[in-house]
């Protein structure tokens, strides 16, 4: 029988199948951060267990770290306590730890690939739903709960039923101003916020083949936002070129051996998926969300759908628009905004900062906008500086902050105030996600940049066309 990429990687990690139960599933790489790991370590210790393979777990602090003055002690005692817990647990159990200020520190889903920890054909988990990011490399990667974090620490396995398979093809060529974020938001809008629940997705077709590794990470990152456990893309030369020479990738003969395996990681011609969808690149425009889940997205030039035209309950839909203070039929373009957030594990990589700068270069931040530009890691910061993007950012009236998850989930001080409207390159527009009462419009770095300079929701194509 012809196998899918997903089958190949999944099946090779099954230690045993439990009769009428889940698979005992082996985990190659495990990332931990300060928020979802402390209780797992408490559980581990209370049972008298130890970390069986400390070299397979990697700790980085990101969720509630401040994004200014990282050289100073963390002011919030609860955040400081979690950061200390991560550091102490890592030290005690012999786990590598990239704490605040470490050159390798940054958002877990940014630093994993950057350091070559993420590898094709690997299984990767983390107590964070956006672990799906790592699927961009042809890994099976997904988020887990804290009980499962403890399972991985103490046994290197979790117990998972094998998800069903879905392939999403996007063919053709993307238009001006259409980024990987827009491709993902378009797919999620088509699938709805729950359409892929129970599935693991493979992304295929011209658009993903053409896409950079950063772009692929953005797309796979957002798989969870349509309910999928994860998403993956078959590794190719771009993948291998990205990985070669990174700090923790295999070297020399080990690399050659790994390459032999990685080259087998593709979906065979007649392999079958439980479901398959195909979309056309030319149908996708820059996207923006208008509601309180990531499935509520439309082309930025469109208006908010009427309740009678949406799937699902009318009450829920109206509650959502009520929270946003929007009306059915409203145009998104021209809505006055208060905040712009560039960053997160979705759009906190170098390419996202390049895109943002392509719009703001030679322009000025609008006075009514507060902007938080938060790189995903220190390596991204270094790259921004090397490429001179820092000057473009500063000249346009923006300030670059220090790495972390920041206003994506507002666990640190980067909270959007109640009622304020934010254009955000992050991944969730849930009620209060960016701070109690905050209102979030998810969009690409280009839409965020265009809106930041105009002070209202803006179609980046108007600026890109003017630049051309």
């Amino acid at each position, binding site marked *: 029988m012809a196998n899918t990429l997903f089958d190949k990687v999944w099946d090779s990690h099954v230690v045993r199948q439990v009769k009428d139960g889940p698979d005992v599933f082996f985990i190659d790489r495990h990332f931990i951060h300060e*928020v979802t790991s402390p*209780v797992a370590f408490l559980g581990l210790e209370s049972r008298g267990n130890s970390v069986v393979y400390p070299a397979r777990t990697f700790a980085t602090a990101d969720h*509630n770290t401040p994004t200014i003055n990282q050289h100073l002690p963390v002011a919030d005692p609860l955040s400081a306590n979690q950061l200390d817990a991560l550091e102490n647990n890592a030290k005690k159990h012999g786990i590598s730890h990239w704490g605040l200020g470490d050159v390798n520190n940054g958002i877990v889903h940014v630093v994993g690939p950057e350091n070559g920890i993420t590898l094709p054909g690997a299984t990767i988990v983390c107590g964070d739903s956006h672990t799906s990011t790592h699927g961009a490399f042809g890994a099976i990667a997904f988020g887990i709960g804290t009980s499962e974090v403890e399972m991985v620490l103490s046994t290197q396995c979790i117990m998972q039923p094998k998800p069903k398979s879905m392939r999403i093809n996007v063919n053709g060529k993307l238009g001006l101003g259409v980024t990987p974020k827009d491709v993902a938001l378009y797919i999620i809008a088509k699938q709805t916020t729950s359409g892929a629940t129970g599935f693991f997705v493979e992304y295929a077709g011209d658009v993903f083949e053409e896409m950079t590794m950063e772009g692929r990470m953005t797309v796979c990152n957002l798989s969870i936002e349509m309910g999928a*456990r994860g998403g993956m893309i078959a590794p190719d030369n771009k993948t291998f070129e990205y990985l070669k020479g990174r700090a923790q990738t295999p070297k020399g003969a080990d690399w050659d051996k790994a390459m032999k395996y990685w080259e087998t990681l593709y979906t065979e011609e007649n392999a079958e998926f439980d479901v398959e969808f195909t979309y056309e690149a030319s149908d996708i425009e820059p996207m923006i969300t208008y509601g309180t889940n990531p499935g509520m997205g439309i082309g930025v030039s469109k208006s908010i759908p009427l309740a009678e035209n949406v799937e699902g309950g009318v009450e829920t839909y109206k509650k959502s628009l009520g929270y946003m203070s929007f009306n059915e039929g409203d145009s998104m373009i021209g809505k006055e905004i208060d905040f712009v957030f560039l960053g997160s594990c979705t759009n906190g990589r170098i390419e996202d900062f390049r895109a943002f700068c392509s719009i703001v270069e030679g322009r000025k931040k609008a006075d009514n906008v507060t902007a938080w530009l938060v790189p995903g890691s220190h390596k991204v910061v270094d790259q921004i500086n090397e490429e001179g993007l820092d000057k473009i950012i500063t000249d346009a009236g923006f300030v670059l902050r220090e790495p972390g998850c920041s206003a994506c989930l507002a666990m640190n001080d980067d909270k959007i105030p109640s009622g304020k409207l934010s254009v955000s390159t992050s991944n969730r527009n849930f009620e*209060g996600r960016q701070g*109690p009462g905050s209102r979030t419009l998810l969009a690409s770095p280009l839409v965020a940049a265009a809106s930041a300079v105009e002070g209202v929701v803006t179609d980046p194509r108007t600026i890109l066309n003017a630049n051309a």
Partner: protein
Amino acid sequence: MAYDKFDVLTSTAYPLPTENVDTDQIIPARFLKATERKDFDINFFRDWRFEQDGTPKADFPLNKEIYAGSKILVGGRNFGSGSSREHAAWSVYDFGLRCVISSAFADIFKNNCLNVGVLPVQVSAEFADTLFAAIMADPKTEINVDLPNQKVTLVATGESESFVINTYKKDNMLNGFDDIDYLKNIENEISAFAESRPF
């Protein structure tokens, strides 16, 4: 962490028909800063239960006295979407709930519930509507959740539907077992497997 066994539960239920309830609503991120697992009930549905000044919102079902003490929550479709935070499942449990019924659950939340002793019961959209209608008509409506027979029943009318759970997870819930005990028990098999991994 050990949890109470689950066998047969008969209880009134909180109705929460809103769809796509995400885990940021179940427990907002700013309340995830604990390093111990305790008292997550306090901030369960924090921003839906309370005004920003801390005043309870009287019309929110979880605040209504008539439902107080219910051990079941009947939620709208796609319950528990979003973040993988197990804190959401802990807050359900700490609030005194042992069962969530919905016509669809997000995967990670469902897994987390099973791992902490909350039974997620998936029913058809029609049966979920029947349950909501019954609770609206009579807030004291009792629902019987029978894990051994995998059946959920409206006590007053006898209307029922069976639900799916794999035998392994069912045995865990019935006996209060958990996955770590299982995995530690096959440690040798796992270490042999680990040896064979290329990286």
